[in-house]
């Protein structure tokens, strides 16, 4: 009994002693910091994704507090709501940025884009892309090893085993841009996010000539330019055999979708225009 008591007391004494030492050490070496940084950090989502350009939310909070003008700082995860809250707390004007979502601009699924060789190296898009054109005849398309999926901290990307392509869940995507940086083929783009996650975009990034595109992939943009002509808003441009829809000018009229001969212009969460309407136009 005596031994037990002695042990317990010794342990307690040790604990108290350590606490006292820790207390003084902590006081002695405390770093003076603006307490608002802690507060702002709490308001941020805490994902530490790096989407703002800082290593983590702490860095962003520090910048938000210390910078006079915070219009260049934006947390894509928290969005406008979060930024407004932080700005009003700090008494600064909130940065404005429209909502965006990651968009995978390659439609070269396994069925559309046959494999022409077998890659046998490390399963990484970056490694494969720095070695050669890729497993298909298209040197621009998705490599398919999911570097984008690996960097997504929000679980918004997944590889579709049927198509061999990554798919974005717009509900989970925070437009942090990690996948955009990770893709060695620069296929993923942050595009304006419409209500209901509606979207119209060219799902191809190939600058090859039409014949080469058609040989490699059934879903590629062949640069025919029909979409450019049909667009009533001048939102579509053609550069080096590739059409691009400017998300700022596009109004989702969908005329281009019906015009595209290869189906490279993709429509999501929207019904296509009735075909006869287009025919009337022609």
């Amino acid at each position, binding site marked *: 009994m005596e031994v037990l008591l002695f042990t317990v007391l010794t342990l307690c004494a040790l604990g108290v002693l350590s606490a006292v030492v820790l207390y003084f050490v902590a006081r002695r070496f405390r770093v003076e910091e603006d307490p608002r940084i802690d507060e702002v950090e709490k308001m941020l989502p805490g994902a530490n994704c790096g989407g703002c350009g800082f290593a983590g939310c702490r860095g962003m909070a520090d910048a938000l507090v210390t910078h006079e003008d915070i219009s260049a700082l934006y947390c894509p995860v928290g969005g406008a709501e979060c930024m407004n809250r932080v700005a009003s707390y700090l008494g600064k004007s909130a940065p404005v940025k429209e909502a965006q979502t990651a968009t995978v601009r390659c439609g070269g699924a396994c069925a559309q884009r046959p494999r022409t060789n077998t890659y046998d190296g490390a399963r*990484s898009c970056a490694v494969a892309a*720095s070695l050669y054109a890729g497993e298909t005849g298209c040197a621009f398309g998705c490599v398919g090893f999911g570097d984008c999926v690996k960097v997504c901290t929000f679980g918004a990307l997944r590889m579709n085993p049927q198509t061999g392509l990554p798919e974005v869940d717009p509900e989970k995507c925070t437009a942090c841009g990690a996948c955009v940086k990770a893709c060695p083929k620069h296929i993923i783009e942050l595009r304006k996010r419409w209500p209901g996650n509606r979207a119209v975009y060219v799902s191809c990034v190939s600058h090859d000539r039409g014949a080469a595109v058609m040989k490699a992939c059934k879903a590629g943009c062949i640069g025919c330019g029909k979409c450019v002509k049909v667009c009533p808003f001048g939102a579509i441009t053609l550069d080096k055999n590739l059409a691009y829809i400017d998300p700022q000018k596009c109004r989702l009229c969908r005329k281009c979708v019906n015009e595209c001969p290869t189906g490279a212009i993709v429509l999501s969460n929207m019904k296509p225009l009735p075909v006869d309407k287009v025919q009337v136009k022609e």
Partner: protein
Amino acid sequence: MKTFRKGGIHPSENKLSAGAAIEEFALPDVVVLPLSQHIGAPATPVVAVGDHVVVGQLVAEATGFVSARVHASVSGTVVAIEPRLNPQGIKQPAIVIRREEDQWAPEIDRSQRVVTECVLSGAEIIEKIRRAGIVGLGGATFPTHVKLTIPAGRKAEFVIVNGAECEPYLTSDQRVMTERSGEVVEGARLLAKALGVTRVLIGIENNKPEAIARMTEAAARYPEIEVVPLRMKYPQGGEKQLIAALTGREVPPPPALPIDVGAVVSNASTVLAVYEAVQKDKPLVERVVTVTGKGLKEPKNLLVRLGTPMSALIEVAGGLPEGDCKVLGGGPMMGRAMIQLDAPVTKGCSGITVLSGADASRQPAQTCIKCAKCVAACPMGLEPYLLSKGAQRQKWEALEAGDVTSCIECGCCQATCPAHLPLLDWIRLGKQTVSGMIRARAMAQTSRK
């Protein structure tokens, strides 16, 4: 017998074509001459579609200092100047010539006579090398005239001729040294004269006794030239390893260059090209290519005009075998796998190696058991297992601290790994990324100044 001290491995030699004499390959009907067959800026075309050209005629001028000229390798008509697929399936601008006859530029001396006298000055020799568009033919394709232009404050003490050919399978240098030893020795003398150097070391691995004998014989009249047999070990043909093996000097880590220890290294085939350029006025229009592989019926050493489709070379060696195949530009340690066999032979193509059957595929990777074989094998004294893991986790700062930029991509680590991990795949990615970061930092610094 000499060799380098640090690391290295002993892969199976497989020099299947070692006994095959160099054959002249049939003239191709069409040649494709990429504008970028060298390290540096792509050359600029100086001919137009429809122009008639003769062999050895300049078709593309070097763009800037670190660049190299391109010459017509056949006589005929320029039919296109357009992007063509390279062996890796990437489009690169090229000049396409349809062959008619075999007309050579008049100034080129095509006789077999070995010229030993040279009245040119060092600068004139270098200028002739530049005009001939010569680059390192061992595979690095660094323009030779740039290498010979010694930066201020440095001094060349040795000319080193790289005859190690440590890469398994490849025999092009070996055949060149065996069959054209006199010309290689003269080429080495020209390099020595161009640099004002009185010491020439020719390093040859001891698995090539005939080449050593011929070269020793050819160099006997010149006391300044020494042929040094080297104990076989990969990567002895690596520039830094060869210098260490021959002189005992180690080139400091990047950005230091071999010239910092007084050495200028040229591959044996390059030295032959230098001889032909200076003494025969012949630009770089052809080279010796080894076509080899266990699945090929007849491994060969072919003297090929640049721009010839590689598929034609494989065909003449017996065609691709049945089943799985991996076709490499170069040897199995450092060669690049190809997907476009119709791509042309370029200046840096020392061989085409066909791996077939079980050799074509990698074995499945297992987990690292910390056996440290990669650490022992690394000729640069790096820690491949850490660098590979760091690259996978994108710890670029840690990679930089681990001297990833010193990696020479020789592949010893991966070839020796019993877990068959893709170590170099990741390290190469890390090296590229870190090198990019370092360049970006340097740019930012200069722009700030």
